[in-house]
């Protein structure tokens, strides 16, 4: 008999996807297939329409008016690299937090070697950054604050609107890494005063892997933005110089149109259900999980410990058992799939006090059910008691 699986690794990538996401990709592969923005025949135009509609939905989702300022790429990492390397120069100062993922830390570390000044502000053990701390860290040459909206380790949600306000007053660009949060909580770039937002398609937006990108607010001057890659765009083909207008400026080479067809369906799913409803369900699941884990002897839960202030991502450890061992037993004995270790975020684990062992992470999604939470809690209880 095939054992059923409980998938709790949605903070890495969401699974399963809504049926319509798979259907949209199959439809694209079978019926459209052509290269968007290249050639003028009907299938190329149809492929172009799909990419265009995905762009329109993204701009709608994050509250920007001009969808040409949405640039697609492989993932949030590509969007982050484009935003950082495209705008920051040697001698500039950038502020970030101690809860960042390596997708921000590694580009910044490399840029430090080339003369970029970086301040990494400490966060609380719950994973929060104080807006007042940001204010104090400004220097004359501060150009940007770059911040992970929601920790991929413990789900802690940063106070975006307050930090956005502090940045706007200072005339500093505010760059938000929304890899975990896009689709899981409402984000409005206007309201929260976000100037750049990196997103991924394959987590809470329910698209496939290989989709993501960067959204540029009005205050980002495209004339200052240096593309990380250049090449064919389907536009201005007579010129050997790269186009200077968006989105072509930051999109070279054939895009992942089949993936974007899936992302479009994922975005439509999220918008049809409504982010408020998604958030309510995920909060309910998170509360249930937190309650169960906090009541279990021998279990330590990290992060905010309340669903109000975090996403449906929960990190914990069982006393005396390494996270890797817990993860293996959850998989082999209970069919529960999660992620253990450092989650590509060593700085965050240092902040939480869980470096270098890491944690066991349950990453939930809108498509998880309460019964799965209860089963998982029972599994953790049994492992903690030394049963099974």
């Amino acid at each position, binding site marked *: 008999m095939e054992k059923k699986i409980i998938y709790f690794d949605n903070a890495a990538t969401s699974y399963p996807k809504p049926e319509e996401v798979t259907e949209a990709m199959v439809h694209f592969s079978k019926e459209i297939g052509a290269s968007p923005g290249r*050639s003028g025949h009907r299938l190329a135009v149809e492929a172009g329409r799909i990419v265009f509609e995905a762009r329109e939905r993204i701009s709608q989702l994050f509250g920007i008016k001009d969808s040409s300022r949405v640039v697609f790429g492989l993932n949030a990492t590509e969007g982050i690299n484009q935003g950082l390397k495209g705008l920051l120069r040697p001698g500039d100062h950038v502020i970030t937090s101690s809860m960042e993922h390596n997708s921000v830390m590694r580009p910044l570390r490399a840029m430090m070697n080339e003369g970029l000044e970086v301040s990494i502000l400490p966060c609380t053990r719950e994973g929060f950054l104080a807006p007042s701390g940001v204010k104090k860290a400004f220097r004359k040459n501060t150009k940007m604050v770059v911040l992970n909206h929601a920790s991929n380790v413990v789900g802690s949600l940063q106070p975006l609107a307050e930090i956005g306000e502090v940045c706007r007053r200072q005339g500093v660009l505010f760059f938000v890494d929304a890899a975990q949060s896009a689709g899981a909580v409402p984000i409005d770039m206007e309201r929260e005063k976000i100037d750049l937002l990196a997103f991924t398609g394959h987590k809470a937006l329910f698209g496939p892997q290989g989709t993501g990108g960067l959204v540029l607010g009005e205050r980002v001057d495209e004339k200052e933005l240096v593309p990380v890659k250049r090449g064919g765009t389907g536009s201005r083909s007579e010129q050997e110089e790269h186009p200077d207008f968006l989105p*072509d400026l930051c999109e070279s080479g054939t895009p992942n149109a089949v993936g974007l067809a899936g992302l479009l369906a994922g975005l439509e799913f999220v918008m049809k259900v409504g982010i408020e409803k998604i958030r309510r369900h995920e909060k309910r699941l998170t509360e249930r999980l937190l309650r169960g884990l906090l009541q279990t002897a021998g279990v330590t839960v990290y992060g905010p410990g309340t669903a109000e202030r975090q996403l449906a991502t929960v990190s914990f450890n069982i006393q005396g058992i390494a996270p890797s061992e817990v993860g293996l037993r959850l998989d082999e004995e209970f069919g529960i799939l999660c992620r253990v270790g450092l989650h590509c975020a060593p700085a965050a684990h240092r902040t939480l006090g869980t470096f270098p062992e890491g944690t066991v992470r349950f990453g939930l999604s809108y498509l998880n059910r309460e019964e799965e939470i209860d089963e998982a809690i029972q599994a953790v209880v049994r492992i903690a008691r030394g049963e099974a």
Partner: protein
Amino acid sequence: MPQGVILFPSIHFALRAEKLMKQKGIPHKLIPVPRHLSSDCGVCLRIPWEKKEEALVILAEAGVKVDSSHPLPER
């Protein structure tokens, strides 16, 4: 009826224009850019030439970047 085309910097703007024409009820079709107008490999928007001014106003108001517009030789 005489036809003409509007050219755009890239397909993104051509597709925005298509959507706007649809919303405003202006007959239109995306076609490959005629070779005599540009060496570009993309598409442009064909409309009845009498609708040109109306269309250009709609596009300008919506912030759609336009390269140029040209009447097409009658067949």
